[in-house]
């Protein structure tokens, strides 16, 4: 791999996505630095999830390019991007309902370590390093006590934890979190927030969230999107003080108030 200048791990340049007459993504440029804690905020319908879908290859851009660790991935299939370290979580849980957390994580780890095509050895056999990693993840995400339960029978909070655990099992260098605490009952939020805060420092994280407390405590850099385009970008303080951002969130209740609380 040739040396690349900045410490940018993920870059989107001039991304455009049109669905018929609707421009869902309007000339978006975004750069994620190594070790970033970068938040992507904006009102509903701003195109944040569409952007994630473009970055991960679920959608094909109408124009623009994407590069990961210096390599152009614009035409790359979704699973190949994952193999290069670009991993995401989903806003609505996308889990494997008939499998248990143990199986799910073991499978994800095995796949990540290039063993996904091995058909002659049992899952998790060998020197036990896959099992060790599973143990770590199960502990970290408080799933050890439910590891043998079928995923569809898990409580929502556990399912959400599993959602993120799967992403970590893929050993990401760039992690895209799509509203990780959405719908999680208040009692189980703490677990989740701790886990998000405890993500390894070398993993670069792009976080989409509406919960402004989480966003401001987590992010060192923020991008605001409105109507498919980037409104502004900067560190949390300048974003909080930006009148345009406040105008976008005006009347948006908690969000506006939370931003306002940091303004004064």
């Amino acid at each position, binding site marked *: 791999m040739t040396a690349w200048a900045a410490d940018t791990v993920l870059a989107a340049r001039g991304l455009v996505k049109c669905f018929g007459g609707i421009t869902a993504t309007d000339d978006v440029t975004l750069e994620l630095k190594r070790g970033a804690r970068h938040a992507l905020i904006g009102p509903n319908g701003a195109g944040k999830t569409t952007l994630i879908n473009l970055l991960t290859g679920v959608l094909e851009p109408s124009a623009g390019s994407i590069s990961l660790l210096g390599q152009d991935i614009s035409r790359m299939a979704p*699973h190949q991007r994952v193999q290069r370290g670009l991993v995401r979580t989903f806003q609505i849980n996308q889990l494997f309902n008939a499998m248990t957390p*143990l199986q799910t994580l073991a499978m994800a780890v095995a796949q990540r370590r290039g063993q996904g095509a091995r058909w002659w050895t049992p899952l998790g056999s060998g020197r036990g390093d896959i099992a060790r990693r599973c143990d770590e993840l199960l502990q970290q995400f408080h799933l050890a006590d439910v590891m043998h339960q079928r995923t569809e029978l898990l409580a929502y909070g556990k399912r959400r934890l599993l959602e993120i655990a799967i992403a970590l099992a893929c050993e990401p260098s760039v992690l895209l979190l799509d509203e990780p605490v959405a719908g999680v009952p208040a009692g189980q939020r703490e677990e989740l927030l701790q886990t998000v805060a405890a993500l390894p420092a070398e993993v670069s994280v792009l976080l989409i969230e509406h919960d402004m407390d989480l966003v401001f405590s987590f992010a060192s850099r923020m991008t605001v999107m409105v109507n498919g385009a980037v409104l502004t970008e900067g560190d949390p303080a300048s974003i909080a003080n930006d009148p345009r951002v406040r105008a976008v969130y005006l009347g948006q209740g908690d969000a506006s108030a939370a931003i306002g609380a940091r303004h004064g």
Partner: protein
Amino acid sequence: MSGRALDALRGLSRIRPWEPVLWLLAFAAPAALPSHALMINEIAVFALFAISLDLILGFTGIVSLGHAAFFGMGAYAAALFAKWVLPDPLSGLLFAMAVCSVLGAVCSLSILRGTDLTRLMVTLGVALILLELANQMSWLTGGADGLQGVVMAPLLGRFEFGLSGMTAAYYSLCVTFTLFIVLRRLVYSPFGATLMAVRDNRLRAMAIGIPVSARLASVYIIAAVIAGAAGALLAQTTGFASLDVFDFHRSADVMLLLVIGGTGWLYGGIVGAVVFKIMHALLSAVTPQYWTFWIGLFLVVLVMTGRERLIRPWTWWGRSRL
């Protein structure tokens, strides 16, 4: 802390105590019930066929209404090989499996995209095309009369295929058992786990880095090879191949068989084959002509009362034996 996952994972693929018992019973059956040797032979063949369908249906979620395409191809390939090349059973079996791997590879291109309905149609279409082909190419296949006079050489040079059907039954049992062992290994492997992931949530499977299309293609080819082996066994042990090996009824029956026994755990094919054959034998004695009516009724009732009464549906409560 560290031992838990390792033990748990090892435990998943551990051989359950009833498994060797089942196989011992299976192998004892022809000796214990020699008059039913031919029926046991058929059960073994259909069990293998059903297991191959389970691989794509129960484990990977591909709904196919034309799996008989491979069964039939295997049957004709083996029969033609025995007639025109070499009557050795094992060579014929391998030849049939090789032919089906090619057919499976070609067909796998058609099932990668689209909805369940698309897949249903495409698989159905392939089976119909092959049926037509076999019908039209009567100079090769014997057309509607079928391919007759397939005489097999003694198995391994020693065991003659006699009228009693003992050799046939043991031959089929051995082949079924061998292939079963291979598949058992496969479903408990990382590969097998990724298949289940593809079944449960294709979008997420892709998002974990699983090359979904490659997986679908490989499992489809494997299933084609196994189904072809089953077809070859049928042709070799019964001495002929007829058009009905491609018939829609075959595809529907094997699906029913599998559903009776349960999808998503390999033994479902075996259990289903046993139950199905016994049911067939009993019902045919009572209503020889209208047995499809009772099958139809059974299907309707089964689905309406919920397959989970007998076994669990693979989409929500898949019988996760793993």
